[in-house]
């Protein structure tokens, strides 16, 4: 709860600091705010508490995911330097919107009441609609915002409809009440309940860009300014999956049979569409969009497994995925700026020679995303897969996932090949700030550390 309050206050402070002449203070200040929130959040560990008539509960699950999301924001913010250099007039608003959206994200991992879930999703989404269109002078950015908003609004309707139907069937918004009603009725209360449940699944699937509700993702990711794409594919996705799992575990565990077939179909489709779709992309950013779809698939696998290992594997996977994705987008941002907005693979040609640090960080990130051992991504996948195989009947799902992971290596390594094995078109060295370099090194080391000692995080929950 302290983190929600602090973030709201800090967001407002940020807005007013933005009126100062120099924008240079904004980045360190925001980082400081986030660091404070990260620290304050940790105090709630093992001190579960409920607020607002039990509409929110800050338990270890919430603290862990809040920690990861705040950390992810903290890590990606330093790469907003070019906004500072351009003296973007709306810099303060960007930072504030990020802080506000984090409030929504935290609500999504700590709700006990479906209204809170809905409000959380909306706080998060509305901030993202604005940020998607924050590059006002670029048509692609406007397009992204409008598309995201239109489709997002549509699926918000679907989600809300689902919530309402569930309320109609059970008479409550509280997860515990819903679970109690479902439990005494064999998990299927009536047709209205099932319909509501399916609509909920569909609504959240859209938010985490799971196929076939992923159509918005490539266009929106491509158009959105890279920094916010990075936020979208990490924090927004993590919050979505965490909310999804919490919803299913706390309210619909008894109704497993009603949502399981749908979810498994969505999962397989997401894995296939995400990976196959990424193969033919020539635009690196668009590839990352498809890749983020595919990672939603891996995360959903943990949900499909639905056992005592699910939450911990989602947590670990989220963290490993967030670290790698932040690096990928950060490097992309530097490279495309240097190459006049070129976001194709070709833009990375020869980066290994001109900027060894960027290239190395990118290589580790790509290894992690494709699940090569000794990076965090390997254990992310391993944990998800072991969670799934606890039910031996789901072995086939693991086969599909591993095959798709093999496909993944193909397109992730394209960029590695471009960096190290192609001659540089533009031999100029890309200039990066020392703080951003430090952050890149930090994330890279962290990724490898988690690949060597995953026990640091894997047993938190």
């Amino acid at each position, binding site marked *: 709860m302290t983190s929600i309050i602090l973030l709201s206050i800090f967001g*407002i402070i940020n807005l007013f600091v933005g009126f100062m002449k120099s924008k240079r203070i904004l980045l360190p200040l925001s980082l400081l705010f986030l660091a404070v929130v990260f620290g304050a959040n940790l105090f709630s560990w093992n001190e579960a508490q409920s607020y607002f008539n039990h509409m929110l509960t800050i338990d270890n699950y919430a603290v862990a995911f809040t920690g990861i999301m705040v950390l992810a924001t903290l890590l990606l913010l330093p790469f907003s330097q070019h906004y500072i250099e351009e003296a973007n007039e709306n810099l303060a608003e960007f930072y504030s919107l990020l802080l506000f959206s984090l409030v929504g994200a935290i609500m999504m991992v700590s709700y006990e009441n479906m209204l809170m879930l809905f409000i959380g999703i909306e706080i998060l989404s509305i901030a993202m609609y604005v940020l998607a269109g924050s590059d006002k002078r670029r048509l692609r950015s406007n397009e992204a915002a409008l598309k995201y908003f239109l489709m997002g609004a549509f699926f918000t309707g679907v989600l809300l409809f689902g919530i309402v139907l569930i309320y109609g069937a059970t008479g*409550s918004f509280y997860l515990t009440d819903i679970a109690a*009603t479902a439990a005494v009725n064999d998990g299927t209360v009536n047709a209205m309940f099932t319909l509501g449940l399916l609509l909920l699944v569909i609504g959240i699937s859209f938010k985490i860009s799971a196929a076939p509700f992923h159509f918005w993702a490539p266009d929106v990711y491509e158009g959105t300014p890279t920094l916010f794409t990075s936020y979208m594919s990490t924090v927004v996705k993590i919050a979505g999956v965490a909310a999804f799992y919490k919803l299913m575990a706390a309210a619909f565990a008894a109704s497993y049979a009603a949502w399981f077939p749908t979810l498994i179909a969505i999962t397989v489709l997401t894995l296939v569409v995400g990976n196959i779709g990424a193969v033919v992309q020539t635009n690196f950013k668009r590839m990352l969009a498809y890749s983020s779809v595919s990672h939603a698939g891996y995360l959903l696998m943990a949900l499909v497994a639905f056992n005592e290992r699910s939450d911990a594997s989602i947590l670990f996977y989220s963290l490993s995925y967030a670290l790698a994705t932040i690096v990928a987008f950060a490097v992309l941002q530097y490279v495309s700026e240097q190459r006049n907005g070129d976001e194709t693979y070709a833009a990375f040609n020869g980066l290994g020679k001109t900027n060894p640090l960027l290239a190395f960080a990118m290589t580790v990130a790509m290894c992690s995303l494709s699940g090569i051992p000794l990076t965090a991504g390997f254990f992310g996948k391993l944990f998800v897969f072991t969670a799934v195989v606890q039910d031996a009947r789901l072995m086939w799902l693991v086969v599909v996932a591993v095959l798709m992971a093999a496909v993944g290596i193909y397109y992730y390594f394209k960029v590695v090949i471009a960096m190290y094995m192609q001659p540089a078109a533009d031999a100029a060295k890309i200039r990066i700030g020392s703080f951003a370099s430090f952050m890149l090194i930090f994330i890279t080391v962290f990724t490898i550390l988690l690949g060597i000692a995953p026990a640091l995080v894997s047993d938190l929950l």
Partner: protein
Amino acid sequence: MEPAVNQQYVPSDYLPILIQFLAALGFVVTTLIVTHLIGPKRKSAVKDAPWESGIESVGDARTPISYKYFMTAILFVLFDVEVIFMYPWAVNFRSFGLDGFLQMVLFMGLLLAGFFYVLKKGILKWD
């Protein structure tokens, strides 16, 4: 409240809704078709021209309107809606006690901060 979940509905219970739905739809469709069929149709250049209260129409219908207009409008809606919260609060002011008062002070403080932000940002300047 005890949720009313044990009551069993049968499809025929929904029949009144269906009938009402059909009636509503039917009315609209019928009216549209009938007026179309029985109305007189005369076509000429004058008839087809858009009617602008007798003033001759010039230019494009899609003239851009300054975004400031929308900004002001949306701000009006925003603050207008927030005021609604004050009515129920005022009615129950006594029973809320000091807590309620402080909460509203906080709320209004945030609102004022927003208003101040809007002013500083120069959104209400019109030129």
